[in-house]
């Protein structure tokens, strides 16, 4: 049984590690400025944890086989432990875990401690059961007032958000069901939810943030590649959670300006 255990544990270790190393399934292609940092930290963590994983499972398999009663006629070592080894091990793991954490923390700080820089594209994202709406404030740079009692999800876009058309700031607001962003410009994101918690998750941007009713959350990110990217809701929001899906179109600055101007014109 000792040999069987060794084989089983080692095989499990081999297959688990193989699919990580081969990257058969991996993080989706990164298309935002944070992706490089996050993927690097992920790879580093994965290499270190991978070493610990293989070492620990390898040792477990080896020890149960090596010291099986059937093959061990020598005396058992009567020992209650070894304080020195214990201290070394404790210190090493503490350095490993805390150090790993500190290495990643500057990325977290740059993503979440700082507000969006000047010149960022303002976009408001609103989650509701089971759709995402995107609002651009227009030339005045101000979002118009929204009124809960005006919200009509069945009418979509402006009406779904309950945009108060009596507010002058609302005149040039553009509301869409698909997100358009210019490439290589920081996005000044405002996140809201009207009913329950949703989570704005764009795997390719390495971006995720809950949208919480009652909170207005400001975030930023910078898409770096032209293309179409999927948005998935990542917080359980009700029976349509699995289909609360949206698209981000990252386009050139020129195409973005054209698209926004066309939407403004449609509105008039």
């Amino acid at each position, binding site marked *: 049984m000792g040999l069987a255990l060794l084989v089983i544990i080692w095989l499990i270790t081999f*297959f*688990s590690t193989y699919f990580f190393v081969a990257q058969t399934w991996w993080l989706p292609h990164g298309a935002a400025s944070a992706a490089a940092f996050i993927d690097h930290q992920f790879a580093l963590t994965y290499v270190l944890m991978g070493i610990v994983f293989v070492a620990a499972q390898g040792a477990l398999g080896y020890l149960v086989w090596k010291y099986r009663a059937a093959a061990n006629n020598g005396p058992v070592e*009567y020992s*209650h*432990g070894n304080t020195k080894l214990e201290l070394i091990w404790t210190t090493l793991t503490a350095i490993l875990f805390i150090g790993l954490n500190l290495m990643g923390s500057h990325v977290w*700080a740059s993503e979440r401690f700082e507000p969006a820089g000047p010149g960022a594209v303002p976009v408001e994202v609103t989650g509701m059961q089971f759709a995402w709406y995107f609002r651009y404030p227009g030339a005045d740079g101000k979002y118009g007032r929204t009124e809960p009692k005006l919200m009509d999800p069945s009418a979509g876009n402006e009406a779904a958000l309950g945009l108060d058309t009596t507010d002058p700031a609302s005149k040039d607001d553009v509301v869409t069901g698909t997100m358009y962003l210019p490439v290589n410009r920081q996005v000044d994101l405002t996140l809201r939810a009207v009913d329950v918690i949703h989570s704005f998750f764009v795997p390719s941007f390495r971006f*995720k943030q809950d949208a919480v009713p*009652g909170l207005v959350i400001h975030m930023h990110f910078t898409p770096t590649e032209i293309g179409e990217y999927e948005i*998935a809701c990542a917080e359980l929001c009700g*029976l349509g959670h699995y289909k609360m899906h949206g698209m981000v179109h990252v386009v050139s600055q020129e195409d973005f300006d054209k698209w926004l101007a066309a939407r403004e014109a449609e509105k008039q």
Partner: protein
Amino acid sequence: MVAQDAHAHAAPQGFIRKYVFSLDHKVIGLQYYFLALVAVFVGMFLSLLMRIHMIWPTAMLPLIGEIKPETYLQLLTMHGTIMVFFVLTTAPQSGFGNYFLPIQIGAPDMAFPVLNMLSFWTTFVAFVVMLAAFFAVGGAPLHGWTGYAPLSALTNSGPGEQLGADLWITSIAIFCIASLMGALNFITTILDLRAKGMTMMRMPLTCWAWFITAILGLLAFGVLLSAGILLLLDRNLGTSFYVPLVVVNGQVMGHKGGSPLLWQHLFWFFGHPEVYIAILPGMGVASQLLSTFARKPIFGYKAMVYAIMAIGILGFVVWGHHMFMSGMSPYSAFAFSIMTMAIGVPSAIKTFNWLGTLYKAKIRFQTPMLYAIGFVSLFVSGGLSGPFLAQPVLDIPLHDTAFVVAHFHLIMGVAAIFGMFAGTYYWFPKMFGRMMNETWGRVHFVITLIGTYSIFMPMHYLGMAGQPRRYSQFTEVAYLQHLMPLNRFITYVAFVTITAQLIFVVNLFWSMFKGPKASDNPWEATTLEWTTSTPPPHDNFGGHTPVVYHGPYEYSVPGAAKDYVMQTDPAGVPAH
């Protein structure tokens, strides 16, 4: 000693007092165990239906029909809740703890036998109320076992969020009360009823684990109880603890000013210690068994005790790592992250000491030991995904994906269940006076180990690729399509692994009546439960009180007559 005499009670006579409303901690322990056994099969069945729906969303199942997306979420909610409360909290602590804690410390019963009976029957009522949610109009709630508000606080946020959700919260509240009573009883028993010579540092590590778990339960369940009551008030009396002004499907709700994050803070203040409530008893059992079957003292007993304490304390200051993406301050995320990484240190100490125990040992491979070794392997595998999720930057891509599902299933689900299997195979002879079948035990072990790894290891890959958890179908999102083969593989393996659990059940019940008779100490172990007869008499030690002379893991002592020295053996062991 005075305390022990005061609460001793005569053996009951009638069937009802002996087996139903019993005051005997052994009977109550078995009652908890069998309640958890029923619950685990209900929970497993629900997960199988979920897996079927994920890969065949429109399949017509016999008797059940088609599973709809909302039904999937109801199954998911009930699977999680039943497993966490009525299996992982019930069997390892209340089941085995009730049965063996008093015996291992040399007490005739728990400190408060009536309270003990009450906690079991309160738990039983909670379970019945939980199951009743299935039959409520609209069905069981769909808000997940974490019950995030406002989804859980509004009655029109989805199917099942009416009576079903009220029953769900009520059941959890009742369960909290039962757990508080149980925790008080455990703590008092350990502090007051230890036999002569049973100092704290001579207690088996199982007792230490039950002790710290009870303290965690005492501090955590009170908070969940309060949180649950506030949620009931929000739902039924129009208060706004958790709900701000919200508009559901165009309808302005009457709430304003509440905080959805308040629920998350209260819930996870309970929820994170709950993880350790589920796993600590398994760690205790693994330590006990590794030493016993390796015929070697546990490596670093004191370090093991301090590690359990450290895990218990740190477990209360890490709850925010569930909330990195919630809108909580990013500065506090930083603090929670450091504390969470720190909890990896005592966990690593335990792993190191388990491996150290096996070094230069003489390992016997009976079924209980196989499960203890499996526990160590799973604990390592489930634990090492922790440092990914504990870093806020890595939590950005991984939070709420299948990666998290893989992580907590391996460590608090499967590892904890391996602890229960280990405990069952180990203590079965003492509880029922017969041995379980070894061959079928091995078959069950091999299938379950390979099966659970094959189910949960691939979920890491799914999560890395961005598959969100709690998606009933993968039809709507294009990038999830290429993950379907892996999802199918998981469902197939789940089928086999769940079916293989019948081997365990048959072995359990068959051995109860037909297994070979067990001796008083079939594993040649040292702790007090192996000094008494099999099964133990009503007062555990047949009228006398044991006196303890040694620590719990004196194996292969040089110069001793046998390769183990009972805790009650007055013969000396060398100082160490």
